């Protein structure tokens, strides 16, 4: 069996190709981006093992947003081929509509939804746990514990999706997505052939059909629970403690198991590992009957522990995040699990005697955003009141010194909507700052609202020709089409201003910004210059 060193993301990408995926669709988002990057980087080798005709039917595409990516994957599945859509946890919020509804239709080609959660918020706005959303949609969820399992579960998820005619979620977290270890791959499977036209009734979610389909989905859930139950691995051993691990929690527990055994005359805790949801719970009851107390080790929000604890008293004490044994926020770690196991910390060198200041991220040397914000700050300098609503992207770093130039950053595309809402009820000088990729993702609809209602706002589109923060992926539309898009949305041509984000044009740019800030209506200023990372990347390739 061939062996590779793969990150979790790469293992998923490889797993999808070895499972015969025909359509891979995504919008970039840390920590999920490298799944699509890996597939694109290895597409030639993948195509080489397919027939001439088949090659034309395989795609790996960045999409405008997670919703459009999801819907493309769904269509590919309807046509009988295997499809995968990958995103970060908050991306699933954007794709929630197709996600929950596609649970009700009869999936044809395997449909796998990969969601990478970011507990600890290394590069995110919240810590939401996608397992809860899979549960909400009544969709099976697979959660690997390492890179090898990420590879195997990706393949298994396609098979399970096809066999049960349901989308399957594969949930990973940052440390699994971005850590590397050795992965043994198995014989690859060819893509599905294009299916013949099917009875498509189940795909039409009109009330009559949806009511039937919902019942079918609930019935399928009995099987999902049974299958997850039999996949869970139980070891009944010492009676003093039972451990329940989920996903990556397994590795943090195993890191400490030898030390626990050494402190308990060689005994090892009883242990149940859960890698699939939803679960029946028989093994959990069996474990509780065998041990005096249970510790639940799961990364993310309180999901399994809450499922076990419920309202009525448990037969044995349940420890975990709810009990306070493990912190409820942040990443799980070998250290937090060690403490919950009652083991003394390992002897470490003492912390230094001086304060170590944090070194927050900042704009790259020569980043165009710096020049855009310098101009904006100066244009707003004499304004008595203003709101600068920012968006998701590198430019949010302008919230930090020396710029201190943005008032908000909430979710993708929100800047224009928030500025518009504030302006509509009387806020003076409502400014939205948004990147080109974020604008195409979900800023355009907000701009349409502003045009429809004639709301006075000033929108800065920082057009750096790329999705910068996630490592310079291509944007869905080239910069030269931006003016046409804006005019098409109804922004008046003379209030679409195009500026070069360059220090040498500072004075002229400030003057244009002041003009547009004074305009009562919708105005859009495109601040154009290529991302430094993007330039480096294009030079490399």
């Amino acid at each position, binding site marked *: 069996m061939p062996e590779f060193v793969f990150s979790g993301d790469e293992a998923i990408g490889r797993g999808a190709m070895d499972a015969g995926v025909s359509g891979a669709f995504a919008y970039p988002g840390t920590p999920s981006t490298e799944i699509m990057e890996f597939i694109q980087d290895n597409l030639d080798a993948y195509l080489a093992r397919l027939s001439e005709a088949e090659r034309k039917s395989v795609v790996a595409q960045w999409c405008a947003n997670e919703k459009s990516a999801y819907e493309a994957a769904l269509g590919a599945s309807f046509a009988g081929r295997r499809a995968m859509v990958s995103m970060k946890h908050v991306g699933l919020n954007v794709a929630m509509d197709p996600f929950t509804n596609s649970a009700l239709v009869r999936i044809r080609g395997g449909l796998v939804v990969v969601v990478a959660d970011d507990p600890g918020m290394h590069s995110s706005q919240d810590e939401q746990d996608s397992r809860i959303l899979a549960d909400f949609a009544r969709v099976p969820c697979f959660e690997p514990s390492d890179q090898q399992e990420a590879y195997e579960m990706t393949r298994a998820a396609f098979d399970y999706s096809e066999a049960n005619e349901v989308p399957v979620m594969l949930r990973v977290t940052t440390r699994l997505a971005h850590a590397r270890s050795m992965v043994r791959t198995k014989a690859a499977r060819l893509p599905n052939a294009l299916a013949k036209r099917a009875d498509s009734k189940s795909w039409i979610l009109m009330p009559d059909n949806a009511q039937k389909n919902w019942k079918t989905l609930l019935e399928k859930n009995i099987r999902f629970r049974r299958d997850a139950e039999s996949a869970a691995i139980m070891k009944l051993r010492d009676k003093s403690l039972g451990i329940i691990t989920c996903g990556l929690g397994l*590795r943090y527990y195993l*890191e400490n198991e030898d030390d626990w055994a050494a402190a308990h005359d060689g005994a090892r805790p009883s242990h149940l590992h859960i890698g699939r949801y939803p679960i029946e719970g028989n093994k959990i009851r069996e474990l509780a009957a065998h041990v005096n107390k249970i510790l639940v080790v799961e990364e993310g929000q309180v999901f399994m522990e809450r499922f076990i604890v419920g309202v009525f008293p448990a037969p044995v004490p349940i420890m975990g995040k709810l009990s306070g044994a493990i912190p409820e926020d942040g990443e799980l770690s070998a250290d937090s699990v060690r403490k919950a196991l009652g083991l003394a910390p390992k002897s470490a060198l003492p912390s230094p005697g001086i304060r170590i200041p944090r070194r927050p991220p*900042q*704009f790259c040397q020569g980043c165009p955003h710096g020049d855009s914000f310098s101009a904006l700050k100066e244009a707003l300098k004499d304004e008595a009141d203003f709101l600068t609503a920012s968006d998701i992207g590198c430019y949010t770093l302008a919230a930090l010194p020396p710029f201190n130039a943005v008032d908000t950053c909430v979710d993708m595309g929100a800047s224009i909507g928030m500025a518009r809402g504030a302006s509509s009820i009387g806020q003076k000088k409502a400014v939205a700052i948004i990147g080109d990729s974020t604008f195409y993702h979900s800023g355009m609809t907000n701009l349409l609202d502003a045009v429809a209602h004639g709301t006075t706002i000033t929108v800065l589109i920082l057009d750096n020709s790329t999705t910068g923060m996630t490592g310079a992926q291509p944007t869905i539309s080239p910069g030269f089409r931006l003016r046409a898009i804006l005019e098409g949305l109804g922004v008046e041509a003379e209030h679409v201003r195009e500026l070069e984000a360059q220090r040498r044009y500072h004075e002229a740019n400030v003057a244009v910004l002041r003009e547009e800030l004074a305009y009562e209506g919708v105005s859009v200023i495109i601040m154009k210059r290529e991302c430094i990372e993007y330039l480096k990347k294009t030079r490399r390739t």
Partner: protein
Amino acid sequence: MNYNIILAGVGGQGGLSISVVIARAAMAAGFLVKQSEIHGMSQRGGQVLAHLRIADTEIHSPTIPMGSADLVLAFEPLEALRYVSWLAADRGVVVSAKAPIRNIPDYPEIDAVIAEIEKLPRHRILDAEAIAKAAGSAKSANVVLVGAAADLTPIPADLIEKEISALFARKGEAVVQANMRAFKDGQAQFVH
């Protein structure tokens, strides 16, 4: 055998590529490896951290537990101090560059930073940038540091050298040679 390395630096210093070089060399030596790093927002001039675990038996946690690191390999001295409490009390070593990167307003006095490293029971501080410059390219400072730490690790030096040349191969022979010299000059700093 179980050897844990924390690679610490600032975005743009090449810390993540160096982590890959050491990991590949460790695998060539027949060890198992697990490597962990954070991408995204943190790449932009902020602190960069990679964990590299090398062992001859299965490695579980993708990250190094507190008190379990054998080596902090730091491309910047303040970043070296940030991870001291990961070092095992009885064996942890800091190998650090001397030159500060002062891209934050509250950077402490550099003398105080160096003094804190010198207080540690096992440390190696070197002017990696100057050594690299003398070897042909200031950009190879990170390779000088790998050289300076090479004898502490369980990986044979020639395997690390091989991976360094592989990393720079597409940049041409001159760059490869500059990095080979940087590695050897780094090694020479602490060989008795």
